[in-house]
């Protein structure tokens, strides 16, 4: 197990190198000379040449990439074209907001989603089941930016319980978390339902019932434990969906998170920030995927990675 985890961690290095190379090269082919973008429209040719030299843009592409990776390892991702502030600082400042938002959303989605999915499966074809399936269908179908605006117009404008936007107080967290949790909640509930249904029909659950165990004990000891394994994967996958959905949610609620930073950078063609933000998210995503695989092996002793 330890050897497996170590090997997977080592395998992250080539993946991140490939991802950074792809992002680096792709953004270099994007329209617009970074030096011109930095200096603005009325830059002199001499000024542009000087900035190009400072940024190393006059060197071969491979040398630039090597210099970029070398800097990235030391925590230096260059400076924003717009604000001239270090990219690492901007990422750190905004990433904290997104991490809180994403973690809370996945936690809420996991707790409610698994409960809904379980109830739905154990009371199959009852009104609870139909209600749960309705929630699932609605959750995967509603545009999250629209859900956010609906929540604002009901719970911040019509009934002013929560603030419209902003970040910092606990009240300001509630509506964004509901918005961002809707989709993963539905996905987790759906997976839990089908997984529980599958386990309930299995021989060992029938055996547990027939040897006289109470329903609560069967569900807790036999059904949930086994149904949890595929659900873990879905929860892990939802982190990716939530990191992406955070861009929309942060835009709706005007939150100072990574998504807002990325969106502003895309609209302003601030390639230094785009590059840093995408690399950060890809790195986090890779670590989460690794954590899911490890959790998978831990939860299901049948899965053993040689």
């Amino acid at each position, binding site marked *: 197990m330890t050897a497996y985890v170590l090997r997977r961690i080592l395998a992250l290095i080539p993946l991140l190198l490939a991802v950074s190379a792809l992002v680096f090269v792709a953004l270099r082919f994007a329209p617009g000379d970074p030096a011109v973008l930095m200096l603005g429209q009325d830059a002199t040719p001499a000024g542009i040449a000087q900035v190009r030299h400072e940024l190393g843009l006059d060197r071969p592409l491979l040398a630039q990439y090597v210099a970029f990776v070398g800097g990235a390892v030391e925590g230096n991702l260059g400076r924003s074209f717009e604000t001239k502030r270090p990219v690492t600082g901007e990422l750190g400042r905004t990433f904290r907001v997104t991490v809180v938002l994403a973690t809370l959303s996945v936690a809420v989605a996991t707790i409610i989603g698994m409960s809904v999915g379980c109830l739905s499966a154990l009371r199959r074809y009852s009104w609870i089941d139909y209600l749960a399936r309705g929630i699932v269908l609605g959750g995967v179908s509603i545009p999250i930016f629209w859900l956010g*605006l609906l929540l604002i117009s009901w719970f911040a404008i019509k009934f002013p319980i929560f603030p419209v936007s902003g970040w910092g107080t606990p009240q300001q967290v509630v509506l964004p978390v509901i918005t961002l949790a809707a989709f993963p909640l539905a996905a987790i509930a759906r997976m839990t339902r089908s997984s529980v249904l599958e386990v309930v029909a299995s021989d060992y659950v029938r055996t547990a019932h027939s040897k006289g165990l109470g329903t609560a004990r069967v569900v807790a000891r036999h059904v949930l434990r086994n149904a949890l394994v595929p659900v873990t994967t879905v929860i892990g996958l939802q982190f990716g969906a939530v990191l992406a959905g955070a861009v929309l949610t942060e835009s709706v609620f005007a939150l100072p998170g990574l998504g807002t930073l990325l969106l502003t950078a895309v609209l302003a063609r601030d390639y230094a920030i785009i590059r840093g933000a995408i690399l950060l998210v890809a790195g986090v995503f890779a670590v989460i995927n690794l954590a899911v695989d490890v959790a998978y092996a831990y939860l299901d002793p049948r899965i053993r990675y040689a």
Partner: protein
Amino acid sequence: MRQMWPRLRRDRAAAAGLVVVGLVVVMAAVGPFVSSLNPSAQILAQRAAPPGTAEWFGRDALGRDMLARVVDGARFTLGGAAVATAIGLCIGTPFGMLAGYYGGWSDGLVMRFTDLLLAFPYFLLAILIVAIVGSGLWTAAAAVGITKMPQYVRVVRGAVLQVRRQEYVEAAHAIGASDLRAMRQHVLANVMAPIIVLATVGLGGDVLAIAGLSFLGLGAQPPVPEWGLMVSDGRNYLFDAPHIMVIPGVFLMTLVLALNLLGDGLRDALDPRLSR
């Protein structure tokens, strides 16, 4: 394939989804020609007029008829999803067949590249592509299509791996069929079901992704009445005229709901193994 229709008809939820999707397609295809409504005519005196008897859905902040704009926007929303699906399918399928049929280094190359694309959460990959190519409805749709590509590669590769060693493929080779012909005539025919399922199941998500990009200002640009962009237009009028934001959202959600129902039904009807 032949059992698909009866199975789909028996599934009432899927049938309802099909009806709604059909209505939206009709709206997109004939709406702008049949209706006498003008989506771009502005009546400034009636800016942000609420829904009522004069205009069913009221008017937006620029005094344009919301009903006319929603009807006109259907073709952009559907067209975007169609472009995204077509790109994912037309690029992903050949690469998946290449990887599955030949194996070896071509398999390794294709799969490493899809792994690379899968290293990004897919909406963020779409944002990255739009950041490079530039915003617009069709570039946003193409970006979403590229992010879907790895799924097609994987599903097609898996299906081809199952079919490749079947006797009828070897028989085709034995009577002198070239690789290309064997793939087109015998392999492709047998991987159609999972491809169709994947394309339909993904449509709802494609619509949401494109609408999301438009909402952020990276997709359709004004004055295109794309529904996600229309929701975004309503953001500044949440206090006084919430209908500007609510109405296009209702259409968007109804369409996605219907597409999801249809996709799930089609999946169950075409390929029971894929159902969960």
